[in-house]
């Protein structure tokens, strides 16, 4: 089970494709690299290409559903909301270039390129970040992930806290369910007004927080007793080293970078969509 899988309550089936076999550092680099690209270039179509590539990898690795779901929940409504508001004459300050007209309730309204571009590009930039980060999380198992982060010289305790937290989220969900039942046994009702709902919320959140803090403390004690703080070099049970697959992927990233650098120099920051410059674009 990978770190992200336990996070998202086992929505992905654990598979063993080349994506899972890629070193965690490579996938992390891909996430950083893709995000940087999306921000250096101001081009929604380029973003879509990157997202498409990531989703293809995800599909092959059988983790498509959670990523697609997250994008559907966060990005799609955002685009549907932002594009009309920004591209119609509703006050977006950089709207200059009219690319067409649209008829609403019998009146004609101009559609501006600047707003349209912005409305598409920004959500898609975020989508690149989210999809590549999720790909990393969902296809890297936590022991290997820990080994990866240790190799990257991050402090062991910090690594542990993050990864263990992911493992325990399903446990937390289960606790919340039991607490909910316990309070329902005392008459908590869900068919009530907003004020009562807030009280209901507290009746679950407070015990949940207290039990969680308590459990965290007990676990810290148990780990201390097992030598968690021993000032020795921790043995990594997993060997983390680059394989040919990793080298190939890294080479691909290097080639793509060179290509895109040339494109940037030759065709500018918006090579495909040719969006005009917008401040903060």
């Amino acid at each position, binding site marked *: 089970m990978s770190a992200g899988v336990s996070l998202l309550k086992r929505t992905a089936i654990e598979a063993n494709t080349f994506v899972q076999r890629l070193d965690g550092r490579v996938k992390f680099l891909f996430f950083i690299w893709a995000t940087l690209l999306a921000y250096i270039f101001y081009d929604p179509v380029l973003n879509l290409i990157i997202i498409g590539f990531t989703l293809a990898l995800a599909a092959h690795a059988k983790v498509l559903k959670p990523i697609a779901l997250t994008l559907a929940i966060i990005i799609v409504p955002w685009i549907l909301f932002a594009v009309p508001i920004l591209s119609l004459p509703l006050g977006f300050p950089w709207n200059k270039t009219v690319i067409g007209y649209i008829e609403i309730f019998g009146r004609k309204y101009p559609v501006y390129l600047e707003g349209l571009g912005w409305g598409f590009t920004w959500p898609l930039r975020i989508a690149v970040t989210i999809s590549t980060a999720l790909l990393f999380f969902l296809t890297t198992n*936590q022991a290997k992930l820990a080994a990866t982060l240790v190799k990257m010289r991050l402090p062991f305790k910090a690594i542990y806290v993050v990864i263990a937290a992911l493992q325990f989220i399903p446990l937390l969900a289960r606790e919340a369910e039991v607490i909910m039942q316990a309070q329902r046994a005392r008459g908590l009702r869900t068919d009530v007004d907003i004020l009562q709902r807030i009280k209901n919320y507290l009746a679950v959140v407070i015990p949940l927080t207290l039990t969680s803090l308590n459990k965290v403390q007990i676990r810290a004690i148990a780990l201390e007793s097992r*030598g968690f703080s021993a000032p020795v070099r921790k043995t990594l049970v997993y060997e983390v080293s680059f394989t040919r697959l990793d080298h190939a992927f890294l080479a691909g990233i290097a080639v793509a970078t060179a290509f895109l650098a040339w494109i940037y120099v030759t065709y500018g920051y918006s090579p495909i969509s040719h969006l005009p410059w917008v401040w903060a674009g």
Partner: protein
Amino acid sequence: MSTVIRVENLTYAYPTGRDFVLKNISFEVQRGEVLAVIGPNGAGKSTLLKSLNGLVPHFYGGRYGGRVIVAGHEVLKTPISTLSTKVGFVFQDPEDQISGLALTVWEEVAFGLMMLGYPREIIEERVREAIDYVGLKGLENRSPFELSGGEMQRLAIATVLAVKPEVIVMDEPTAQLDPLGKFEVLSVVKRLAEEGTTIVITEHEIEDVVYFADKMLLLDNGRAVAYGDAREVVAMVNELKSRGVDPPSVTELAHLLYRKLGVNASYPVTLEEAVEVFSRLLGG
């Protein structure tokens, strides 16, 4: 050196507590001995156990007096990480001991050795041994979270065994388990005891503990009220009951029966002994 644990006048108060939780406690544990610590909740049993591996005072702070020497190290002057190689600690709730970093039972047992920087070859060997010993062979690839209570607690014991400590300390290891889990865990403890492991254990299941405890320490309100041979302490029926501890049913029965009959004899402490004694007494 045959004395593995020496506690001299141990006195302790938690930083947030007004009262002293341990008051002037002294006892010794020899190599190969099993010491059972009994007493009502709040007597200080857990605190006493935690003072054997350094959690008290290093993790909790507080006010500390007296001396505790474990496997040649003075606890007050030794960090927990060093003591963790000498003292293996098993806690009450099996789920609370799972690290959260291991995907499988195998990794979980290896985790401790990993923490302590043992070389890979040794890890492989020790993990296999420990898993076999507690009877979890075949479950190496399961997720620790999928195990039953009894299996999880045996996993915790395995993680301790892998480090090969000099003393194993167990704080009410069966309290949260169902009858089958209790049986599984107590069987492992019994086996460890028979094979000469030095153990300090607190338990409410006194009827089971008498089978393998050599010495018993009765704690109440932070004080060592009784300390000695397990058979002798467990037979102090009035002393135990007045402090809210039930002796084994057969022992209590013998106590009441002998008193009524005016018999002066030692009480049976196990079922088997009781069967012998009572069948003779009642003419079977």
